[in-house]
Structure formats: C-alpha cells, structure tokens
C-alpha cells in the first residue's frame, strides 16, 4: 500500500486509542474523587503527568484544578492530546484514506468526532460527565470492532493495529509509572483500605480490575505490575500490546517471527523477548520507574524505525531493481 496511506492508517489508530485512554484516565479519577476522604487534596496533577503534557499545562494554566485539568484533557483545542484534538486528527487521517477503510469505519469516526465536537460546545456537567467519557470509550470500541468486522486482514489492518497497540502500550506504561510512583510514596498508606482503593483505580483505568481479580485475586503492587506490564493475555497489558504490534509488523513484511528484515522488527522482537523472560521482583528491585523509562525509549525507537522503514519518502535507486516491481509478481 502507499506509504502515505500506511502512515495515515497507523496514526488514525493511534489517535483513536489515545482519545480512549484519556477518557479512561479522567473517568477513573472522577470516580476516585468520590471515594476520597474529606480533607485530602484532589489528585488532578498526576493525570497531566500521565499524558506527558505537564509543561504545556503549567505554562498555560498554572495550578491543576478539577476544572482546568478536565478542560485541558478533554476539550482544549490547543492541547494536541486532548480528546477533541485526537478525534480531529483521527478524522483528518481517516478522511485522507477514506477509500482504504470501510464506509462503516469512516462513518463511525465521523460520528465520533461530531459527538465530541458537540460536547465541546456544551460541556457535560455532574452526572453527564461520566456518561460522556463512557460514550468516548464505547465509540472507540465500536471503531475497533468495525475494523475487526469489516476490514480485510491486509496491510491497512496491520498498520492500524500497529498504531493502536504501540499507543496502548505507551499509555499503559505511563499510567503504571505515574501511579506506582505516587502510591508508593506514602508508605504509611500501604495496606490500608485507602491503598486498595487507589490500586483498584489504577487497574480500572485500564479496564483491568475484573480480569486482575481472576488472574491474581488479592491486590498487591507487584501483582499489578505483573498484570499490566507482563501479562501475555490481557489485551491492555504492555506485553500483550507489543506482541500484537510485533505480529502485525511481521505480517506486513511477511517475515517469520523468529527472524527480522528491518530495524523496527529487530528492536520490537528484542523488546518482546525481554518482557517474556522478565521477572517482576527484579524489575521492582532495580526500580520500576527506570525500567519503564527505558521501555518508553525503546518503544519510541520502534515507532521511529517504522517511520523510517515504511513511511519516509525515498527515491528509487537505479540498478536496484529489487525495489521496483509490478504488483502481484
């Protein structure tokens, strides 16, 4: 498929996933605030850290309050990672590849965008807020489901999944990083009911609470790290996401899983191996933050490698006929 189209497909997947994750963070925090004992500061600042936009936020808004954080993350058109901006970008990308995706997918992303734009004009309040974030998550799920149900398992589908899975892995790693840091900061809280509530919230923001219970039962910091970082079967766990991204990358270039054809395959393959053989005890001992920091750097290298390999504009080289071919041959 065309490099430009592959690029847009990948980003469309990323932006929809990003919007969904922002909705999750905000919604869970709204819910968590309801459980906070009176007198405790409201925890809105960590949300900004989770999306990685703390600098731009501090510059434009100053101190984090419930109102300005929610506005910044949800409807601020100048924040490129707000739900509104993500949807606008996702739709622009979809519009430029409308003939590649199914009509059902296009119409869903268009409706999704119009719904968020409408909400931005009349922001939801009180009990309407939860409904809005739920609608965002559902719209994203519907989009993903339509892609599953209407797209051929061709390059477009694989680039879409690649974008979505790299984004999801990135967001899960950020939420784990920020929450773990905050939660372990107040050692006195460990083991109290409050702590359980916080840990449950971390899991809920990744829709992981119920599945965690089935897998591990009791809540524990290490259990949460094991589940969100290393679980091979939970669809929002980093390892699961990166395995899926790797599968798509190999499907695109038709390379067997135990070898590689280009740098991003090699980088991602190494990353997946490391996660497969990692031990949560060692990770926590050496510092989870450092581990996640390194993980994010490596995931960024994969993304850059995907760009260089598939999307960057090149000229054909004379004499190198292997890159020039008729389709179907």
């Amino acid at each position: 498929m065309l490099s430009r189209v592959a690029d847009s497909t990948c980003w469309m997947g990323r932006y929809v996933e990003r919007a969904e994750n922002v909705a999750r963070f905000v919604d869970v925090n709204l819910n968590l605030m309801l459980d906070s004992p009176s007198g405790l500061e409201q925890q809105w600042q960590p949300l900004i850290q989770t999306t990685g936009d703390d600098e731009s936020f501090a510059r434009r808004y100053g101190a984090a309050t419930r109102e300005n954080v929610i506005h910044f993350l949800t409807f601020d058109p100048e924040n490129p990672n707000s739900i509104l901006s993500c949807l606008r970008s996702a739709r622009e990308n979809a519009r430029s590849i409308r003939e590649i995706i199914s009509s059902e997918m296009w119409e869903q992303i268009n409706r999704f965008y119009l719904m968020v734009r409408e909400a931005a004009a009349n922001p939801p309040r009180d009990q309407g807020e939860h409904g809005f974030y739920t609608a965002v998550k559902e719209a994203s799920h519907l989009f993903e489901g339509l892609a599953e149900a209407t797209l051929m398992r061709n390059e477009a589908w694989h680039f879409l999944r690649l974008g979505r899975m790299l984004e999801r892995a990135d967001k899960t790693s950020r939420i784990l990083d920020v929450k773990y840091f905050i939660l372990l900061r107040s050692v006195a809280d460990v083991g109290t009911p409050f702590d359980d509530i916080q840990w449950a919230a971390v899991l809920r923001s990744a829709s992981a609470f119920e599945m965690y219970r089935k897998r591990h039962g009791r809540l524990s910091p290490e259990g949460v790290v094991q589940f969100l970082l290393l679980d091979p079967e939970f669809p929002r766990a980093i390892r699961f996401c990166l395995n899926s991204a790797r599968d798509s990358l190999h499907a695109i270039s038709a390379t067997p899983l135990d070898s590689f054809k280009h740098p991003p395959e090699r980088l991602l393959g190494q990353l997946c191996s490391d996660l497969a053989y990692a031990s949560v005890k060692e990770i926590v001992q050496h510092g989870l933050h450092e581990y996640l920091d390194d993980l994010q750097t490596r995931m960024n290298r994969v993304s850059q490698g995907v760009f260089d390999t598939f999307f960057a504009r090149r000229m054909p080289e004379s004499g190198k006929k292997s890159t020039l071919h008729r389709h179907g041959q």
Partner: protein
Amino acid sequence: MNFSGYDTTGFFDELIAGNGRPHPAARPLVQDIERLPPGELQLRQQAAERALIQAGITFNVYNDNQGVEKTLPFDLIPRIIGGAEWARIDRGLVQRITALNLFINDLYHDQKIVKDGVVPREIIASSKGFRRECLGWKPPRGIWCHITGTDLVRHRDGQLYVLEDNLRCPSGVSYVLENRSLMKKLFPEVFSAARVRPVSQYPHKLRDLLEYLAPDSVTAPRVVLLTPGMYNSAYFEHSFLAQQMGIELVEGGDLVVHDGYVWMRTTQGFERVDVIYRRIDDDFLDPETFRPDSLLGVPGLMKVYQAGNVALANAPGTGVADDKVVYAYVPRIIKYYLGEEALIPNVPTYLCSEEKDLAYVLDHLPELVVKAANESGGYGMLVGPHATAAALAEFREKIRAQPRNYIAQPTLSLSRVPTICGDLLEGRHVDLRPYILYGKDVFVLPGGLTRVALRRGSLVVNSSQGGGSKDTWVLARGNTPVDEEAEALTTSGSAPREEGSSC
C-alpha cells in the same frame, strides 16, 4: 404537503404541467407525496440532511468562517425524465462527444477543420486550452476526452439546450450516486412503482474504461486516481470514486517517474502505475512540461505518457474544446465530422470577436449573459438582468478590450422543479449534468446531477452560491400508458410571463 397551490406560471416545470396536473412520468411520485401525513415530507428532508452530515459527504469551502467543510444541500423532490425523452438526450450526447473527440484529434494532427475554414485559426491559436505540447500526440486508443459532464438547461419553450461542455475534469458524479442511495432509503416505496433506471453501475463502467486505456503489454493494469489532496473542494468525490472502483487514491507526492515509467511509493517499495485518472488540471500535471511552479503534479509524467507507458484520462489538451468561443462552433463541428445536425441545440451565442455580434452585445448588455471564454464554475460571468450599472459598465470595457475573450447568450428562463421551502413546495430553477464515458463504446449514465438554485428567483445553481442538488430519475421506457412526451410538450407552452429573474 400537496401541490394544490403550486405555481408554474411563466416557467417550464419538470414535474407539474401548465394545467396544474403532474406530467405522466411524475404522477406516481406526486400521488405518493400527497398521500404522506402532514409533516412527514419535512421529517424525511431532515433525515436526509442528518444522513449527509453523519456520512461526512462534504465539500470544502475556502474563506468561510463557518469551517472548511459543508454539505451540499439536498432536496428530496427528484427531477424526473421520461424514458423516451432520455433516449433522445442519450443520442444527442453520444453524437456530441463523438464529434468533439474527432475535433480534438484533428486539431492536434492535420487541422483539416481549420484548413477547410470551418473554425477560424485564430480562435484555436488564442485558446488557453490549446496545448502546443500535444501536437502530434496519439493518446491511447485514440480517445482524448473519456469522461464528460455536459451541462444541459431547459428553456421556457420546453427545449433542452447544451449550456457547456465540461471536457476537462468534470465533477459531481459522486453526488448522483449518493443522492440516489439516500432516496432509496427515504422513498423505497416510490422506487418500485416508478421503475427508475439505476445509476450504481457508474464506478464499474469507469473502471472498465480506465483499464481499457492501459498499455497493450499490461495484462492486469494498475489504475490510480490522482487528486490534488484532501483540501481540494472535490476531495470527497475523489476518495469516493477510488473506493467504489477499488483503485488507489494518490497524490502527486506518491508518484515518481523513474526509468521511463511511473511508480508509486508503497510500503513494499515502488510499484508501477499504468493508468491515471487524473483530477488535476493540465497546468498542474507535470512541472517539467506545464506550470513549473506546480507542486501537485509529477515531474516527468508527460514524457512517460508520450512514450505510451502510462495512460491519462482525460488526455491533456481537451480544454481547447471546452473554450466558450469554440463552444459556439460545436453545431458546425458536428456537421463537419458527422454530416449530421446537432440533436441537442446550443444556446444561441454571440461571439464578441465578430464585429456584428459585438455591436449587438454592447447594445443589449442588460438582457444578456456574458461569459469569459476560458473560465468555469460561474467565474468571470455577468448576468445582465441582475447586474448593477457599474458591473455593466465594467464588462463593457472588458469586452471592448478583449473581445476574443467573451461570448454572450440570451438570458434563458431555466426550468423549475418543486422544492421543499419550509412548509411549502415552490418552484426552483435547475440545470442538469449527465455524465458520459467514452471507452470501448460510449456510455451515458441514465441520470445525472440536477443542481438547483435554492434561493427564490435565483438562477445560479453553483454550490458556492446557494445551490443544492436533487436526485435525477430517468424512467424505464414504456413506463406509462399515456405517451408521456407528447403530453409533456403540449402542456409546456403555458402563457409565458416575464416574471421574476429569468435566465
């Protein structure tokens, strides 16, 4: 809603005859509309508008602070054309495009028509659409103009005229297909009764045509649609057609010329392209041959084309026959190549380059429509009856300065179709753009884009100026027991009255 107070005075109405009764072809539809409970038609109209927004069927408008995307307003009441009348339109359009293709080919080779004195040499030489670069070229299969969207209008007398030949990159066919799919959802019951001919075969026919143009050596040709990009006003159409045909939608930057072929940049390397349905103008196609500042095109493309290694539809150079001065000669062009009279007449046209015509035009400017020879989309145009004294004076000067650049036509009284205006049905002026595909044979899509001027009295159907569209129903022949045509034509001459703004 009903048609009891509907006024057809002074105009030809496409659905309702002068006696207030529907034309035979429109009877089932009118009966169906009148049977709807009060308010139902408006509800379906709103549903149509919602559906267009949700489906994102939009065009881009510049310099508009409402945002860049708009939907083309759609009116539910279709225009209906009887089967026998359509057969005549079909024959007339086939005749015209056949002659025009012979004409273009002649101009770029022997120029017999010029040597025989039928079309003056200076008219051709001074036409902006005449490309010297194309002299001597042989386009694949000898066809220059593959895709045409001819504008037709009907005057008060019931006669259809050709208003313009759009031979470069005519747009609008996606609305024909989308309008139809909306109407089928909103009025399923009428469709089965009315025996409306389908239009959905267009993308298949277009793809067949494009594949037919591929170089002989290629067995499974790679066809692409070249768009200026998503900010172009017709972008929806480009992506829609590419999707419906199952071909790649490419931008100039996706293509590259190398080793005498055109390639596209894919994730797996470079793949050869054999046929390009280009939706960008000649000027921008290839900066090495045409405008050097073009960023939209593909450097070196024309050399590959000339070598026969890629086909372009339409061929470069067709614009010469789209010139509004050349237009005036089309009836003579048809006669010259085919030995036939034009089946669909031209609107009478005054050529300002001819002394006698010029004098008439300058004397009668307030009654005439004046058009610049090389413009399209309603630009560079003066509608005399609506113009201010200042605008008239300005055009008088322009015409005197460059008579070759202007033509004038009498202001036609465009026919009307009932249109939903709030709680009433009112007549609004329409034109019609059928689409013609010239490949192995000539195919005229039974239907077309009916554009409607939604403002009362307005004659401007362009989407940028308050125009909308309607579905166009061409009925299967032998549909009504009555001879539909005969009745339609005898009822058309109802006391013409110079009322409203006629055009």
